[in-house]
């Protein structure tokens, strides 16, 4: 674009046209901003660096740096008298993580995450299927919005809403005559409630990509709807379903607010991390917080081959 200097500065100064060495003329007059723009225009790489440096610096410094700091801290120890962090390398924190008390908490947490995932799958799969293959286009549009909306209603308030639902003499008690109260059951229900849309949406997207001709072919070949569902729909949907389970599983794994509000005395990994953080045993809290990461990474690696990660 620099071979047309007159037009180059067309928004205001036309003097470049008058001279035959226009480039030099225009360069003499521009404002500093123009000069920077022109310098960058000539060098795409510089433009890229200018655009990318701030966001990348932010994420790398503020976040990746922080993750490294977290990892480092997990190898430090706490001075038992002053509660100060002592920067001496030790593996004690990780040894402690594997003690029976914490192992129980870790197993319970994974159990809760699995239960939540299964419940959401059982509710989410038929719901997504209904949206795509049963109801009219108009109804579908409304239903999709209805399912997405609660995602944005405050997470904390939704947990609190279940505290109200399951309260003694609350609505569940009045309607059913009894309430599970605050505990493990309440935690599983509330987490299933929170993450249900995260299960429905990927499955919905997966079903939308599933051509109707496949289903027609199955029925032409004599398959009843049940057979079609289990032999055609489910296998094709597998990546989408796994994508949904990644959300419900990972989100449940790291939670501590829910279990604190509706879980009674139940503890999850997040609870122990938060308690140790509050009681200034930060290196141990840091070591503990690597457990959810490790479990999630293992899960992601296990499902990577199914192509589920492209469905996220």
């Amino acid at each position, binding site marked *: 674009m620099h071979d047309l200097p007159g037009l180059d500065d067309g928004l205001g100064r036309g003097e470049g046209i008058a001279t035959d060495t226009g480039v030099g003329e225009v360069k003499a007059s521009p404002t500093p901003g123009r000069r920077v723009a022109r310098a960058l225009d000539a060098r795409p790489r510089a433009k890229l660096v200018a655009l990318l440096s701030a966001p990348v610096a932010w994420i790398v410094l503020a*976040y990746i740096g*922080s993750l490294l700091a*977290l990892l480092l801290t997990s190898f430090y120890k706490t001075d038992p008298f002053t509660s100060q962090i002592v920067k001496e390398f030790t593996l004690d924190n990780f040894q402690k993580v594997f003690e029976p008390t914490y192992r129980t908490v870790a197993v319970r947490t994974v159990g809760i995450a699995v239960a939540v995932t299964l419940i959401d799958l059982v509710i989410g799969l038929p719901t997504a299927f209904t949206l795509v293959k049963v109801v009219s286009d108009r109804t579908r549009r409304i239903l999709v919005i209805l399912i997405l909306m609660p995602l944005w209603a405050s997470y904390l*308030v939704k947990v609190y809403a279940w*505290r109200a639902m399951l309260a003694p003499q609350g609505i569940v008690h009045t309607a059913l005559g009894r309430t599970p109260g605050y505990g493990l059951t309440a935690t599983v229900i509330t987490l299933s409630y929170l993450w249900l849309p995260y299960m429905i949406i990927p499955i919905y997207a997966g079903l939308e990509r599933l051509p109707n001709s496949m289903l027609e072919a199955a029925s032409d070949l004599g398959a009843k709807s049940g057979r*079609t569902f289990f032999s*055609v729909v489910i296998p094709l949907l597998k990546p989408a379903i796994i994508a949904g389970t990644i959300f419900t599983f990972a989100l449940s794994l790291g939670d501590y607010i829910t279990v604190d509000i509706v879980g009674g005395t139940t503890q999850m990994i997040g609870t122990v991390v938060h308690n140790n953080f509050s009681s200034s045993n930060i290196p141990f809290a840091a070591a503990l917080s690597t457990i959810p990461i490790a479990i999630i990474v293992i899960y992601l690696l296990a499902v990577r081959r199914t192509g589920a990660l492209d469905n996220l």
Partner: protein
Amino acid sequence: MVLSPLARVVLKVITALALAFLYIPIFLIAILSLNKAGNLVWPPSGLTLHWWRLAWHNQGVRDALWTSVKVGLCATAIALILGTMASLAVHRFTFFGRTSISFLIVLPIALPGVVTGMALNRGFDSAGITLSFFTLIVAHATFCVVVVYNNVFARLRRLSPNLDEAGADLGADLFQSYRYITYPLIKSALLAGGLLAFALSFDEIVVTTFTAGVGIETLPQWIYNNIARPNQVPIVNVVAVFVILLSIIPVYLAQRLTDATAGIAGR
């Protein structure tokens, strides 16, 4: 696949139940905020606006609301700048590590809140920064970038690359091209991303717990700190409904913005 009438009915019933499951708790809280008795007992003893008035004049709630709004606005502003820059870079250029950029940006929100919160807490500590209002904003901005990035990037992908080239052919320099061509076309995506970022920040509690300075209390933290206090239940109910409204309205507007402009921005 031909579904029997029975199967269709069963599927519709399950869907209706799923929707009821999603909405009953939210409506319950809305009704309980008007409960005369001011507790969680069902059915309510009568309806009143008394608790709404009381909550409105509650100084603790007002301070927390103001803190949340300030954090949300500052974090959104930073997220808007960083998210737009990153999306422009990834959209316009090919470079080494391009595919990892979106991974990097989504990471703060993809990892559990406890992990992100603990990590940022350790990060600030190793950098010798005392937790404060400033660290809270930095933390929130870090996980808000992704929504702006996603929104703007989705919009850029729908724009024709010819527009910029046409601008350049007509002599627009870099800044002019952004100001007169790109910006007007991505404006609504920016607004939508900004609204979503604000909603995300306004609602956040876990990362906040680990990164806010002493004495700083956001609205979600106020709720959390008062949940177990029986005499605060009626006020908590009201604040809960208020927070839902305040986080849903931006999302609704964002939705409208992205829908309304889809026709214009599309090629």
